[in-house]
């Protein structure tokens, strides 16, 4: 076993190249990570990386990806992480997930036209999955697409969508055969966000005014007789559930990660800097116990992430590992917020400009850990998936095999 990547001289040379490139291009991020200024910097970094194929390092070169191997990709991730950055599809999870599906299910024309803008960082794509009536029950969507000549007419509403920094493309799952068999009556579309009839309205979520840091600005997207060209249908009519399965897998944590949950190192740093009774807080035995709780959760998260990263990139057969990692991350997020609250007391809750030493990060996390229970499938949905894939209560014959790996 080897928990750390090992590198060839070529890969070490690549590391030098990345480092030197980052010296010139890495943005300086200050204050609130989610401020419009910082967003613009991250977005620019994405475009710059995209120019070199480093935005989607493992995607095929012909569509704008990097065509890179496993260890090279790790080098890239490591060098980003060393600067507290990560590969920036985090502001474009819609493109990350949608791109993966198009790569599998798109026609040649679709791949050639839709993928390069995504892989080069030129567009931002939102995923539209949840409807007012269909949350965990994605297949129960009531957004309809009806064929009309060369177009589909789309009507419906999706919620908990996107963010606050604008969008170019929307993909979504629609019902194309309302009377049809469940899971066989859906179609998957990649839709330009500026088509007539599309309205985007911010939701008012956990936080003071909906715009609170970390409360995760989300939108409702309304489709009112939106005419979508049929060429934007990916994977064929009524095959949408299959298409969605590809990206749902990724969203359920199957992609893995080599980076740490930063909350342990942050908490450690603050506990070393702050004082209690004239000594560093970190020397207090209760504070240490809270740090150990956070350490334990984040170490296990990291190990599950590494395992999934390795399994995914080396095409091991995966079953329950993605949703397990996702479930653990969601639930341990709540435990970590509690430990932070006991560790830093009421500072855990405030973003007061004068006294808060975390620049709003602690307050934001107390809220976002709650919000994060739900996107990408609720915690319960992750358990449903694990149960199915482990084959609990299922005979050999009916056991679901999810051995297919995804990018």
């Amino acid at each position, binding site marked *: 076993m080897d928990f750390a990547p090992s590198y060839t001289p070529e890969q070490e040379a690549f590391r030098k190249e990345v480092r030197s490139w980052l010296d010139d291009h890495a943005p300086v991020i200050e204050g609130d990570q989610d401020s419009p200024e910082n967003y613009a910097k991250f977005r620019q970094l994405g475009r710059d990386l995209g120019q070199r194929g480093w935005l989607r390092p493992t995607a095929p070169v012909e569509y704008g990806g990097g065509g890179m191997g496993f260890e090279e990709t790790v080098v890239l991730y490591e060098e980003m992480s060393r600067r507290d950055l990560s590969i920036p599809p985090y502001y474009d999870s819609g493109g990350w997930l949608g791109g993966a599906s198009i790569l599998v299910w798109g026609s040649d024309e679709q791949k050639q036209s839709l993928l390069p803008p995504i892989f080069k960082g030129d567009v931002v794509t939102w995923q539209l999955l*949840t409807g007012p*009536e*269909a*949350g*965990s*029950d994605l297949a*129960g969507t009531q957004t309809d697409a009806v064929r009309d000549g060369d177009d589909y007419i789309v009507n419906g509403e999706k*919620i*908990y969508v996107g963010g606050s920094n604008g969008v170019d493309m929307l993909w979504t799952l629609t019902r194309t055969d309302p009377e049809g068999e469940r899971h066989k009556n859906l179609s998957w579309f990649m839709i330009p966000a500026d088509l007539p009839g599309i309205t985007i309205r911010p*939701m*008012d*979520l*956990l*936080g*003071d*005014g*909906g715009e609170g840091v970390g409360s995760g600005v989300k939108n409702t997207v309304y489709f009112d007789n939106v005419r979508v060209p049929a060429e934007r249908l990916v994977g064929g009519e009524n095959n949408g559930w299959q298409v969605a399965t590809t990206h749902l897998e990724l969203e359920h944590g199957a992609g893995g990660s080599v980076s740490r949950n930063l909350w342990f190192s942050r908490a450690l740093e603050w506990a070393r800097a*702050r*004082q*209690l*009774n004239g000594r560093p807080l970190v020397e207090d035995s*209760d504070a240490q116990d809270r740090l150990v709780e956070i350490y334990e959760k984040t170490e296990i998260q990291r190990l599950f992430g590494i395992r999934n990263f390795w399994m995914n990139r080396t095409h091991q057969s995966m079953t329950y590992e993605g949703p397990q990692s996702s479930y653990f991350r969601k639930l341990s997020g*709540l435990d970590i917020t*509690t430990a932070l*609250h*006991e560790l*830093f*007391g*009421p*500072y*855990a*809750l*405030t*973003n*007061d400009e*004068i*006294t*808060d030493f975390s620049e*709003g990060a602690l*307050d934001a996390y*107390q*809220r976002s850990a*709650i*919000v994060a*229970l*739900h996107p990408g499938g*609720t*915690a*319960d949905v992750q*358990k*449903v998936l694990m149960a199915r894939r482990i084959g609990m209560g299922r005979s050999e014959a009916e056991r679901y095999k999810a051995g297919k790996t995804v990018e």
Partner: protein
Amino acid sequence: MDLSLTDQQEMLKQAVDDFVSRDAPIETLIELQQTERGFSDEMWRTAGELGWLGMLIPEEYGGSNTGYTDAGVVFEALGKGPVPGPFFSTVLAGEIIKELGDDAQKENYLTRIANGSLIATLAMAEPDYQWGNAGVQLAPNEEGDDYILNGEKSFVYDGHAADLIITAIRTGSDDNDISLLLVDTSIPGVSARKLEGFTSSESSVTFENARVPKSALLGEVNAVAEGLHVALMRATPLLCAYKVGGAQAVFDLSVQYSRDRVQFGRPIGRFQFVQNHIVQLVIHLDSARWTTYEALWKMDTGRQTEAAIHLAKAVTSDGYRHACDYGHEVHAGTGVVREYGLTLYTRQSRSLFHALGEPRYHRRQLAKLMPTLQLDDE
């Protein structure tokens, strides 16, 4: 043995419930949260008029002195709203003045607390936060008959709305060498700003050359620690009751949602994963409820209360927090939409988690009792 409410308590509960459904429905409370003060002066006045603030105050000062359990019933019903406002802060201040004040101070302040014309609170903690007397470091300068205060008190509940801030100051080197000043917030040099974030009513109170006469001392210099401890302990179960009310509301919301929300063709409450959340929620709720009411009962009947109060505070702080977490699991996305109302409770479950000491603090106090603890029936 009788675990039901008395007729008097049932009437009190009904009165608050009626008030909430008439004057403080959830839509109103969501709007209130966005306001500068964060609560409604009208609701505050109503509480004063109906006598809810004087239940622990002797009749000679205009209170009804009906006891802790009665007050707990009111606080539970307020917490169920959840009605925001300086209710607890003011009642706590009353308990401190009752314990440490001289006759004139009692006459002056308790009367006004009882009728709702005075908003009061306690300021202990400071930017180098820790709960307890050791966290009090603000040391005054003395000038003749005055103290001059310079410094900051942090995380003062309702400090921005208070007319009176009982301010703990450091007047000696031992942890317990603190004193208390009755600071009128209208004097020059006292200002407060609300602390924004996932807070409820916490403020930072700044003193800049604030001149406070020594006659404003509550109790003797360096001799208030015990009285303050007694008052804090007595008030604690009322805060617990407020949290019990909140947890009850989250339970009610979650059960209702489990019936109304349909996914995969069935109400979600038919799924055992969802059932499990509500099962855990109601265990936290009932644990909070019964530890709280037993503590209140022990106070009203003059029993040993220390272990019971620490237990109730630890259990309700954890319990309310977990109740909200489970509520969010039941509600998924709907729960984080502000207009639904669940987050009103979530916010309070966090904001009141560390109030009067986080659960770990109370468990440590309980731990220290272990060498000598007597069980009631021994």
